């Protein structure tokens, strides 16, 4: 595996790369450690709080260390490769055969390339901070150990998705993520709403997963392998893609495009894209660290990561210019782009009219995921992934901040009942404000600005799809607006809640500070002046060029987005800033346009739409099935049972008069005979001993008799 990748290097004789990098072989430890930890924790008793939390954190820390060393290994190898003039794309795999499916072997394996390396680092790091935060947040929960068991399993499953080099392994981990999300969202299962939300999340994502599985099966049928990369014979490599392109599915799509769309359906389920987004806001019923983990670092990112991973499949058949620049696009990418852009605006609209602090963030997440999808569709892996990484940090920050606020306000979640927390919870306020500005895309200083700007720039520059640009810009305006609204409600104005708010403990604020730091500085790795991130993912060298910032075209865009952001911020502040309305008072927007407000507040009736269409249909279908079961099949079964009963009656009569009679007679004889013999067995040890001794005498007598001359 690695050896083949590194062998040409060995020809130079003095290359410092070891012929086998242990990190590639031991990459599986990254997901395995948290999973093992969760297995051990599951055996612990409830009072072992410190031990279980410690174990979970230790396992994830070890995974983080491994991920970091993998990351460093990728950087080192890349610089070495480019130094010696090779293709600097680092992609090392380690495959093992698992079983044979017919004649085709099914392999499992793991993959180390820039994408998986940076994703693993991000998941481990954010996950670790959330774990530490959970120690404080869940301190009073009686099921503390169970929580850490699930969390650890969740993190392990997500890391499995990240390092998998096989569609099958990825799918297994993917389903594991689904299962643990169900467990975690329904963690407080005694709350009916939590149980319902867990079910909803599970079933909704399952709808997408069915399509995903179909795509996998189709892919396997076409290419005969489920590995992503396997030295030219993987399903994402040139040969397989050529095969896929040559097959035509319906509607003018190639097999590659159709499979890509099926996989995208799965990704849409996990990432909450437009038709399947309904589970995400309800998932807020879980504990806040769970929301942070699901919404920021792991589950929803899994969908985006999946699309990034199979990007070669999505973009297969894309016409290129002579210089390698894309000269067109593919159907799959167009669908991804439109769905993403629509989701971005749709969710942002709904977020405007929500009052639950976590629900606002949930819709914001959906919206941002739409951005990522659009970024993938328009600008490729680097654009989408950059937003994914920055978003992971600041969204985790916002969720943990929200958790801190909720914790401080004694489990109050309604923003209208908060207010004035600026002074009471200073650390939370400052970090939350940083997260909010990053999410809004406040120019220059925050990471969100650079990543979001890259997407908008890609949309603007795209020569093939024009519509999304305007949608995305409108989404950015809305984002700034609803975040301003939320922050104004929560931190400014007069306190409206009952009870006295307090700052959270150190173990909760420390992760906030760390995340805030990264929410600011992370933008530096992806600015147009120094596009290190893009270079890292694409396997090129990054160069620093400050002048790109001042090009006319770019400066115009920069100015546009800045104006939009300030417009949103200003609008929000004008409507809500320092107003401190009463909780029962109608919202400022509601006064202006009650009809639109009501629509937005009720989430544009998507749930209700599903209620009258899909769910009603299922009810009807279930009733038909029930009728079939009871009347048709039930009747047949009853008839068969009756026939057998008749047989049994006949049999019984035979048995009673013939078989039993003979048997009883024989038994009686046996019983009489046994009674005679049993007199010898009178239960007295001495009688037996006498029989024994008598037998000895008899034997001796026989011996003497037979030895007689």
């Amino acid at each position, binding site marked *: 595996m690695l050896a083949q990748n590194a062998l040409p290097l060995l020809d130079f004789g003095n290359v410092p790369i070891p012929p086998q990098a242990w990190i590639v072989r031991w990459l599986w430890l990254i997901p395995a450690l948290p999973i093992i930890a969760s297995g051990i924790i599951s055996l612990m008793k409830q009072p072992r709080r410190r031990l279980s939390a410690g174990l979970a954190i230790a396992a994830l820390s070890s995974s983080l260390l491994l991920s970091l060393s993998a990351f460093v290994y990728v950087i080192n190898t890349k610089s070495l490769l480019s130094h010696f003039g090779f293709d600097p794309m680092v992609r090392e795999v380690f495959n093992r055969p698992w079983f044979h499916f017919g004649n085709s072997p099914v392999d499992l394996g793991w993959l180390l390339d820039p994408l998986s390396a940076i994703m693993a680092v991000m998941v481990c790091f954010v996950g670790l901070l959330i774990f530490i935060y959970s120690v404080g947040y869940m301190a009073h929960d009686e099921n503390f150990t169970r929580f850490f068991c699930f969390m650890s399993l969740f993190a392990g499953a997500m890391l499995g998705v990240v390092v998998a080099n096989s569609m099958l392994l990825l799918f297994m981990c993917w389903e594991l993520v689904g299962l643990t999300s169900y467990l975690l969202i329904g963690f407080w299962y005694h709350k009916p709403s939590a149980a319902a939300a867990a079910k909803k999340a599970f079933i909704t994502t399952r709808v997408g997963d069915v399509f995903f599985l179909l795509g996998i099966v189709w892919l396997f049928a076409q290419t005969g392998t489920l590995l992503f990369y396997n030295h030219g014979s993987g399903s994402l490599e040139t040969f397989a893609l050529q095969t896929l392109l040559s097959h035509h599915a319906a509607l003018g799509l190639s097999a590659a495009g159709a499979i890509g769309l099926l996989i995208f359906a799965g990704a849409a389920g996990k990432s909450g894209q437009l038709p399947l987004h309904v589970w995400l806001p309800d998932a807020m019923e879980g504990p806040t660290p769970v929301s942070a983990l699901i919404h920021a670092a792991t589950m929803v990112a899994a969908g985006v990561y999946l699309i990034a991973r199979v990007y070669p499949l999505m973009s297969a058949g894309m016409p290129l210019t002579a210089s390698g620049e894309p000269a067109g696009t593919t159907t799959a990418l167009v669908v991804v782009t439109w769905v993403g852009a629509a989701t971005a605006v749709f969710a942002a609209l709904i977020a405007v009219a929500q009052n639950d602090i976590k629900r606002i963030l949930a819709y914001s997440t959906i919206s941002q995921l739409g951005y990522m999808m659009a970024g993938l569709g328009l600008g490729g892996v680097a654009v989408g992934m950059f937003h994914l990484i920055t978003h992971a940090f600041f969204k985790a920050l916002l969720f943990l901040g929200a958790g801190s606020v909720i914790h401080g306000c004694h489990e109050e979640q309604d923003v209208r009942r908060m207010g004035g927390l600026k002074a009471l919870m200073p650390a939370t306020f400052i970090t939350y404000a940083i997260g909010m500005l990053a999410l809004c895309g406040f120019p220059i200083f925050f990471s969100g600005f650079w990543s979001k700007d890259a997407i908008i720039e890609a949309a603007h520059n795209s020569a093939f799809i024009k519509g999304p640009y305007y949608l995305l810009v409108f989404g950015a305006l809305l984002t700034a607006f609803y975040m301003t609204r939320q922050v104004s409600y929560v931190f400014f104005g007069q306190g409206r809640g009952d009870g006295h708010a307090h700052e959270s403990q150190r173990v909760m604020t420390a992760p906030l500070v760390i995340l805030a730091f990264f929410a600011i500085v992370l933008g530096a790795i992806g600015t147009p002046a120094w596009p290190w991130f893009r270079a890292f993912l694409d396997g090129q060298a990054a160069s620093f060029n400050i002048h790109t910032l001042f090009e006319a075209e770019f400066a115009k865009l920069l100015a546009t987005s800045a104006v939009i952001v300030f417009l949103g911020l200003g609008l929000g502040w004008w409507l809500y800033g320092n107003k401190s309305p009463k909780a029962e008072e109608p919202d400022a927007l509601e006064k202006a346009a009650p009809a639109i407000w009501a629509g937005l507040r009720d989430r544009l009736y998507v749930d209700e739409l599903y209620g009258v269409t899909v769910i009603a249909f299922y009810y009807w279908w279930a009733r038909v099935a029930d009728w079939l079961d009871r009347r048709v099949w039930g009747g047949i079964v009853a008839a068969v049972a009756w026939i057998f009963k008749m047989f049994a009656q006949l049999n019984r009569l035979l048995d009673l008069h013939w078989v039993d009679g003979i048997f009883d007679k024989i038994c009686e004889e046996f019983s009489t005979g046994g009674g005679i013999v049993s007199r010898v067995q009178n239960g007295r040890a*001495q009688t037996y001993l006498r029989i024994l*001794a*008598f037998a*000895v*005498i008899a034997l*001796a007598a026989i011996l003497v008799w037979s030895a007689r001359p």
Partner: protein
Amino acid sequence: MGITFYLIAAITLAGALAAMTLKHLVHAALAVTVAFAGLALFFLNLDAQFAGFAQILIYIGAVAILVVFAILLTRGSDLPKDGVFSHTWFVGFAIAAGIFAVLGWAVLASAKALPSESAVPAVTVHDIGVVLMGRYVLPLEIVALLLTAATIGAVIVALHEKERAR
């Protein structure tokens, strides 16, 4: 075939007979101790010092004590109400006599074929130790295991069951 032999034989057989016929169980136990002691003397007479002392140590020092303990624990020191022998005692004696007849006949009939070396074997305890640790080391280990198992088993069997305590 000195006077010693007949003396010891008389003591041993008298002890054994007394043990089997005496009414009182403790008396019987003491009588059987005499028989054991007689056997130990037999062993010494046969130049088997080690076996003789082991016989004294184990039979008189342990088994006899165990027997009297068992007698006292089962209230056997009271005289039995309905006879010492079981009501079909005649059959038992007849069979025992039959066995003796068979054994005696066998011994006397093969008397000519029996070895009769008279040299005193020069065997020291050291030799016994060497043989025990050499040729017979496996039986020794097995006996050790057996004794351990028997100790544990006896303790468990005789353990007082709390639920059934009257």
